């Protein structure tokens, strides 16, 4: 690339973090500005450090929380919290020991800052435009909503970052997804990203970093942008990014870890340059008409198997993957899913457990009841989200409706902490993965927005949320 050539947002953040350029023989050495860690994907990385006698290079750029293996059972004090399973308890203990031994900041059980790793980074203002952010978790793509380059890594790479603050990376390709217009009533960021994955496929973004652009994105609040970027990995993409704008800066201004005073002014000036230049070239481009979108629901066993909520589930027509998926889901092809009885509704996860997600669910649940025979769990994304929701009285709405209001964590998204969907039951979940057994061995999952979740909880069956608007 020659000087002065128009660059993409990704190109700018990438080149700003090159310690050593890539060559045909060797990958680039990329500097990492923020390393988020949690209890599940780090124990073996600390073992690498311990075996090699290495310290953590930049404890000040490392931030730990506990979210995956942690219980969400409501408790009066955290001393009462019982961790489900010996393995989970050992993992939580080890996380505390590792952070103590290596001098790392950890938001443990009693911390008001604890929560899902992808909720607390933005909430603290640690997630900022132009940063490189990694975590041993594929949904690290969430942080791209701020114009950061953020992606999930494996445990060996967690060890690399702990030891050197760097990663070995080949430069990915770029994919522009332009969303025109605006989303209609009852159509949310979740519906948009499910529609995108249904269109480009669960491998449509493999090898690429996505930049989401266009009027529909510009009109979205940060919570919604995070939902979109969060599921970039479900299209196979390395990361998803959105250029920062005034919405981003307003969100960050005054947050605990955001720059202050003169530093803030300087940062905003720098951040304003973080956009794709006019004429910047992407390796692939996709256009979506925002105004055409409907509330979406998944019917199969990957997030790409999704249809508009009133549309029929596709016919099998000799497609072996579809047959396998529908057999597992016990779903009939050729008919819409609306009216299908559901056992569990889960509102939570790094995709949809921020304050605005809970507000959307509460708007439908207010003055209504969860249908008999349906269990509804509402799990805030962080202790801060919980506190903010309670200040607005949302918990009263949920409890009055008969839903369970719980402590924060990953919870039933992946069922590592004892919150699982029993075998054979159908769960409508605001999380990100409907893989076989994801929410518990033999569990069946359909993914949808918090609005669809709340509407469906009230009826006890899959319901178009627009009936409640």
């Amino acid at each position, binding site marked *: 690339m020659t000087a002065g050539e128009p660059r993409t947002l990704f190109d700018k953040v990438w080149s700003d973090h090159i310690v050593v350029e890539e060559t045909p023989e060797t990958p680039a050495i990329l500097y990492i500005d923020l390393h988020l860690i949690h209890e599940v994907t780090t124990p073996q990385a600390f073992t690498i450090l311990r075996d090699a006698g290495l310290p953590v290079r930049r404890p000040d750029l490392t931030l730990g929380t506990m979210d995956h293996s942690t219980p969400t059972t409501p408790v009066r004090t955290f001393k009462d919290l019982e961790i489900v399973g010996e393995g989970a308890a050992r993992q939580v203990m080890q996380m505390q020991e590792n952070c103590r031994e290596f001098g790392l900041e950890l938001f443990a059980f009693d911390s008001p800052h604890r929560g899902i790793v992808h909720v607390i980074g933005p909430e603290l203002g640690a997630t900022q435009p132009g940063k490189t952010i990694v975590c041993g978790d594929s949904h690290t793509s969430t942080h791209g909503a701020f114009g950061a380059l953020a992606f999930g890594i494996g445990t060996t790479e967690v060890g690399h970052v702990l030891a*050197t603050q760097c990663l070995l990376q080949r430069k990915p390709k770029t994919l522009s997804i332009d969303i025109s217009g605006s989303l209609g009533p009852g159509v949310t960021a979740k519906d948009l990203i499910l529609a995108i994955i249904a269109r480009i496929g669960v491998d449509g973004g493999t090898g690429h970093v996505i930049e989401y652009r266009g009027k529909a994105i510009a009109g979205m609040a940060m919570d919604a942008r995070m939902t979109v970027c969060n599921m970039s990995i479900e299209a196979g993409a390395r990361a998803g990014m959105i250029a920062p704008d005034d919405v981003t800066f307003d969100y960050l201004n005054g947050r605990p870890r955001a720059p202050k005073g003169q530093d803030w002014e300087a940062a905003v000036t720098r951040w304003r340059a973080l956009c794709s230049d006019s004429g910047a070239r992407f390796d692939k481009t996709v256009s979506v008409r925002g105004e055409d979108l409907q509330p979406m629901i998944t019917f199969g066993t990957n997030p790409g198997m999704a249809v508009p909520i009133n549309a029929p589930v596709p016919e099998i027509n000799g497609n072996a993957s579809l047959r396998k998926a529908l057999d597992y889901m016990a779903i009939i092809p050729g008919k819409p899913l609306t009216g299908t009885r559901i056992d569990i509704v889960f509102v939570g996860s790094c995709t949809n457990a921020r304050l605005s997600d809970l507000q959307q669910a509460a708007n439908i649940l207010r003055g209504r009841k969860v249908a008999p025979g349906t269990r509804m769990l509402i799990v805030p994304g962080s202790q801060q989200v919980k506190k903010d929701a309670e200040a607005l009285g949302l918990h009263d709405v949920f409890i009055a409706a008969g839903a369970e209001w719980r402590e924060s964590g990953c919870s039933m998204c*992946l069922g590592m902490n004892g919150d699982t969907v029993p*075998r054979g039951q159908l769960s409508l979940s605001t999380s990100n993965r409907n893989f076989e057994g994801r929410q518990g061995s033999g569990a069946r999952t359909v993914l949808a927005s918090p609005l669809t979740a709340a509407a469906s909880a009230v009826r006890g069956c899959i319901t178009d949320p627009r009936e409640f608007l």
Partner: protein
Amino acid sequence: MDPLTKIESRTVVLDVDDVDTDQIIPARFLTTTSRDGLGEHLFRDWRYREDGSRRDDFVLNSPAARDCSILVAGRNFGCGSSREHAPWALLDYGIRAVISSEIADIFRSNSLKNGLLPIVIDKAPHDWLLQNPGVQVGIDVAASCVTLPGGETAAYSIDAFARYCLVRGLDQLGFLQKHAEAITDYEENRQWTP
């Protein structure tokens, strides 16, 4: 890590597209703090029923699959979560290479760091391997080439650095550590600090 130069094995074929890492190793087994012993739980819910009995109709449970170290899988293998437990479980079970027409990014990166060879080949040889399970296949890591029965070969592409490390059994962390000075220079000279 031991050097990986050649693999000779019959193939075991899992003709399913989009196999996600939740199938390879379900989340309930991620509470471990070690990387050992995960082979027992590889494809747990496809290999075993709820009561713990084996599903004899699952391909990895067939007698022919025993001792196979090459897994041929459908397109987009290893999608989903970043859990490195997926390659750890495959290796612990005895798999040394996965052949597909597409492999998910994070799974591929994790595999290369553990001596599990992720091989992406063209659709035609991939289709042939899917349709002919149990054939004897050779993999020459240095030449980046799969030899099919009858002597036909299928080349695959792999990052040159990853191959260099695999063939010599090198840990990539050592390479990063050798650049400590460049990393310090970067930290001291960058335009802004995180």
